[in-house]
């Protein structure tokens, strides 16, 4: 069952600009994760934020989590052509092994 919903579905920006993607979810979570998928490939884990954290950084990535609004955002600063990919959020709960996935945001970085 899908829980996460990403917004926007597609985003096209110029190289060097910042890209922001949002994710909303419906039930309580243990953590929220962001993954990247290059065209036709498997997914790569980017960052995990726990339910008791509000913000996390990793290189050019910044993730925020607002559990009261059941939403998260992923900010990619100073975008590069290599950031062109689809980005997925997924939520994990303490009670089972599964992740619940959103439909993804397709990001295109124009040179």
């Amino acid at each position, binding site marked *: 069952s*899908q829980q996460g919903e990403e917004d926007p579905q597609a985003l096209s920006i110029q190289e060097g600009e910042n890209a922001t993607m949002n994710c909303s979810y419906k039930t309580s*979570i243990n*953590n929220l994760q962001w993954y990247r998928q290059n065209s036709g490939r498997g*997914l790569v884990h980017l960052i*995990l934020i726990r339910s008791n954290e509000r913000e996390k950084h990793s290189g050019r990535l910044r993730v925020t989590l607002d559990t009261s609004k059941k939403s998260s955002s992923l900010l990619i600063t100073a975008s590069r052509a290599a950031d062109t990919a689809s980005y997925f959020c997924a939520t994990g709960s303490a009670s089972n*092994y599964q992740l619940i*996935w*959103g*439909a993804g945001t397709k990001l295109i970085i124009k040179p």
Partner: protein
Amino acid sequence: DVKVTQSSRYLVKRTGEKVFLECVQDMDHENMFWYRQDPGLGLRLIYFSYDVKMKEKGDIPEGYSVSREKKERFSLILESASTNQTSMYLCASTGLAGGGEQFFGPGTRLTVL
């Protein structure tokens, strides 16, 4: 370096054929997953396994079965392939309970004619 491998990147089969998709991980993970990915639908869980010989249905198990005889190997079986099973199939594994980070294979793009 952690690794999840899938037996084929591209596969073309005919309607009614039995299809085996294999996934192997070298991280000694207990949990393994099979997803299918279709445009606009994100990842949908077909089956997962939390131990050898253990399996649980995901959201869309119809038309599929799985086998986990060894810890490192998780196979997805399409008993009688149909055109609506044309999709990208992704295998993943994790060593963590509670919805932890999953490691993915490169995917198998299956076309059923």
